[in-house]
């Protein structure tokens, strides 16, 4: 049998594809999207990439709240009477077809004026005519073609951040000045006493002076601020010697020019600032498609449906939900606050919260916790706690979330620069003292020359380039870090704490079967029935059954929250809960699916969490250098299994609430430990923020991750020991480069203390040292990364 792939989404079509326009589709949803595109001359969508689409989700009623102006007010970028501009985040954006179709939205609906995609951010900015189309209609249009935007509470509460481009401006100014000053300084370097040169010298020097002013007062302004802040807190950070160098360079050069003594060191000054800013830009590698600042707001909806006393459905903003309110939670919607299930079949997926991939069944009267996602049909619930008071969300009231982590951490560069600054000042003083007795006129000359040449250009560049390059190398190996400081913190780690569910376990469950053995034929029949169901357990089981081939299923029925049934070759096949196949439910914590064929119960499939591949190897590699621990919110059912894999001194802690996790990490830190927390769910969010470095393991980096310092792709989880080793080695490379840089400073110092530092020496020495350092650290980091 030839496997036919869906023309729209690329899924397997099975033996009964939906055929339309002589093309195969896996379902009616995909066919409908094709129809829409076909009718609007947009089939080019399928020419750019093969099977670029996604099955559109059911959305009936989900976006009703978008008609409420008060709730959606903050979602707009801009809005007036005639037109509105709004930016949507659409996770599905992944290829050039996506860009093409989303930028041609105006062909689907003429009320949309224009749309522009920002691919790295997975955003589309839509301008539409608000008199002829509502926001709800726009969102429904996007959803109907498989590009459902993610509208979260965060969009409605956080004011849109402006893009900060100052650094680019500053670099532009410095680069412009550097190039032109270089050009104008050049003639004087040859020191020929030509007539024309003497004549134009004043003009050249004046032009240079004019150009250097914005470099010092605009481009370098950040360094002044930072040095001032450092001094105020009595810290000699790297910016102090930098500013000292800039000020001395500027004053001495200005003095030389205005008293016609020499040409000054303005070219070195501009080059110095230019290189510094270049380093700053280089270490600013950002992954714009990832967000490291997410909290529960990024996942919670903007509004929910409330059922009032007269059984009428009204939309309320999420912060207006009060205790005692009755809410309607539709299929695939999130539970916004803690409450009690009143009616309906609740099947809650808590993977956002705990990382647990298997959904949990709840009966009416059971407690539901905020953050769970309802999977089967609509339910009604009564609220017990407001949104901010719920079990999960109250975690964010902890102070940890309001303080920035990096403050107070002393970087390697800063600790070196402290000694460096003191030494330089001592040398300048001693050299000045010496010349005071030899030749008083030379004192100012020598002291300023020492300060100029000691300007820690190379020193300041080595960390940004080494760390920035490492950040990129990590990115290629699917470890995405928030910024370069994280690498430095990683190198200091001595304790590694893992969350259990979702972090060291797979999201794919291990499925085992017990009962009467199934024949190949029966397996195929079961698989065929499973194919029609969208339930996560069905999908997992479907992928787990190895037998090939699909048979025709008739009388397919899906009983929400119970199971599915269908007829294959006149045999009724039932898959579902114990109740569904009419046997007494067994008392067990495991998730099971029972199989009944022709009215006879055959056995059941057991879904179990399985540990990630290579986990024992990983623990083994880490155990010598780090203290290990497991910190789980689950019960201790797997304790013995874990103890086998972990070294004897590892701590295993179970049954911890989100706030307890945070406290546990804090206690470890109070004992003087540097903790790396590895988690995945929102319940780890507190621990991740509190720890020295918080990493998130994610199966799909685009979809979900709580606030953290870094995100590691689950497929590369086993490389964790390598990542830790690499960060340590990067710091070693920086230390080595400091030696090189100090060597250069030493050579420069020889020129300076003897009073021989001419502008041309400075102009050669400073860029040369910078470039050497940059090459050294870049090659060094690449080398250690390629070494196994």
């Amino acid at each position, binding site marked *: 049998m030839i496997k036919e792939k869906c023309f729209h989404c690329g899924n397997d079509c099975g033996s009964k594809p939906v055929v339309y326009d002589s093309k195969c589709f896996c379902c009616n949803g995909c066919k409908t999207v094709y129809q829409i595109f076909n*009718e609007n*001359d947009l089939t080019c969508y399928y020419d750019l990439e093969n099977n670029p689409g996604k099955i559109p989700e059911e959305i009936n009623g989900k976006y009703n709240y978008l008609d409420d102006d008060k709730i959606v007010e903050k979602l707009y970028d801009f809005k007036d009477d005639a037109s509105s501009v709004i930016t949507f985040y659409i996770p599905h954006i992944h290829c*050039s077809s996506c860009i093409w179709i989303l930028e041609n939205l105006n062909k689907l609906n003429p009320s949309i004026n224009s749309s522009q995609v*920002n691919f790295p951010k997975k955003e589309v900015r839509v301008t539409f005519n608000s008199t002829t189309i509502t926001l709800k209609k726009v969102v429904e249009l996007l959803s109907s073609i498989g590009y459902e935007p993610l509208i979260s509470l965060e969009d409605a509460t956080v004011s849109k951040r402006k893009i900060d481009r100052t650094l680019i401006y500053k670099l532009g100014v410095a680069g412009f000045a550097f190039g032109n000053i270089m050009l104008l300084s050049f003639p004087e370097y040859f020191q020929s006493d030509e007539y024309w040169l003497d004549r*134009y010298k004043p*003009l050249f020097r004046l032009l240079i002076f004019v150009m250097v002013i914005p470099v010092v007062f605009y481009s370098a302004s950040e360094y002044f601020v930072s040095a001032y802040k450092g001094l105020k807190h009595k810290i000699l950070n790297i910016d102090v010697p930098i500013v000292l160098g800039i000020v001395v360079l500027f004053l001495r050069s200005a003095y030389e020019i205005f008293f016609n003594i020499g040409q000054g060191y303005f070219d070195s000054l501009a080059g110095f600032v230019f290189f510094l800013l270049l380093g700053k830009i280089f270490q600013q590698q950002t992954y714009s498609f990832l967000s490291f600042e997410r909290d529960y707001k990024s996942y919670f909806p903007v509004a929910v449906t409330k059922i009032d006393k007269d059984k009428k459905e009204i939309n309320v903003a999420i912060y207006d939900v009060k205790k005692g309110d009755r809410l309607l939670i539709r299929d695939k919607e999130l539970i916004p606050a803690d409450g009690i299930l009143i009616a309906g079949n609740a099947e809650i997926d808590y993977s956002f919260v705990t990382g647990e991939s298997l959904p949990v069944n709840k009966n009416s009267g059971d407690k539901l916790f905020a953050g769970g996602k309802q999977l089967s049909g609509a339910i009604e619930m009564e609220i017990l706690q407001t949104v901010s008071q719920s079990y999960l969300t109250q975690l964010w009231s902890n102070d940890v979330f309001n303080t920035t982590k990096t403050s107070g951490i002393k970087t390697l560069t800063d600790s070196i620069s402290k000694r460096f600054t003191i030494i330089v000042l001592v040398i300048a003083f001693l050299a000045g003292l010496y010349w005071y007795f030899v030749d008083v006129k030379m004192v100012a000359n020598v002291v300023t020359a020492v300060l100029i040449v000691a300007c820690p250009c190379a020193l300041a560049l080595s960390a940004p380039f080494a760390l920035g390059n490492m950040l990129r190398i990590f990115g290629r190996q699917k470890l995405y870090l928030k910024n370069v400081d994280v690498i430095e913190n990683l190198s200091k780690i001595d304790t590694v704490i893992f969350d259990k569910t979702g972090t060291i376990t797979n999201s794919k469950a291990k499925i085992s079967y017990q009962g009467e053995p199934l024949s190949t034929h029966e397996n195929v029949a079961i698989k065929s029935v499973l194919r029609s169901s969208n339930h996560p357990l069905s999908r997992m089981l479907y992928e787990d059954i190895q037998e090939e081939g699909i048979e025709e299923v008739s009388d397919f029925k899906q009983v929400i929250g119970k199971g599915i049934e269908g007829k294959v070759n006149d045999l009724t096949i039932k898959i579902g809960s114990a109740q569904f196949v009419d046997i007494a439910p067994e008392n067990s914590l495991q998730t099971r699916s029972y199989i009944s064929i022709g009215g006879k119960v055959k056995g059941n499939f057991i879904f179990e969490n399985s540990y990630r591949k290579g986990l024992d190897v990983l623990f083994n590699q880490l155990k010598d250098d780090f203290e290990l621990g497991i910190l789980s919110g689950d019960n201790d059912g797997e304790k013995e299994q874990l103890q086998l894999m972990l070294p004897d001194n590892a701590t295993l802690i179970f049954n911890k609430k989100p706030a307890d996790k945070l406290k546990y990490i804090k206690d470890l830190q109070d004992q003087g430990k540097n903790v790396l927390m590895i988690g995945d769910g929102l319940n780890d969010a507190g621990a991740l923020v509190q720890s020295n470095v918080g990493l998130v393991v994610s199966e799909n980096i685009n979809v979900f991750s709580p606030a953290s310092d870094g995100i590691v792709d689950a497929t590369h989880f086993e490389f964790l020991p390598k990542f830790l080793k690499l960060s340590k080695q990067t710091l070693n490379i920086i230390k080595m480069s400091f030696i090189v840089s100090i060597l250069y400073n030493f050579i420069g110092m020889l020129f300076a203390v003897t009073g021989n530092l001419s502008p041309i020496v400075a102009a050669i020495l400073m860029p040369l040292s910078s470039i050497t350092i940059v090459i050294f650290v870049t090659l060094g980091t690449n080398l250690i990364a390629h070494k196994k």
Partner: protein
Amino acid sequence: MDIIFVMIAVSILIAVVFFILFIKSVKSGQYDDMYTPSVRMLFEDEFVSEVPKEQKSTSKSINQNQ
């Protein structure tokens, strides 16, 4: 040699013009998204979009090759 005044003035002026253009392009957001434009420019310009719609239902096979 007074020509050098003019030459310096012209060269600085040209540099300043480019500098202003650079600032303008940054301001307009040209450097905010470095990827999408590289894909966008490869899309075909569609002059055919004004073709009346009836044509399509009769000649689907042609449409597919569009």
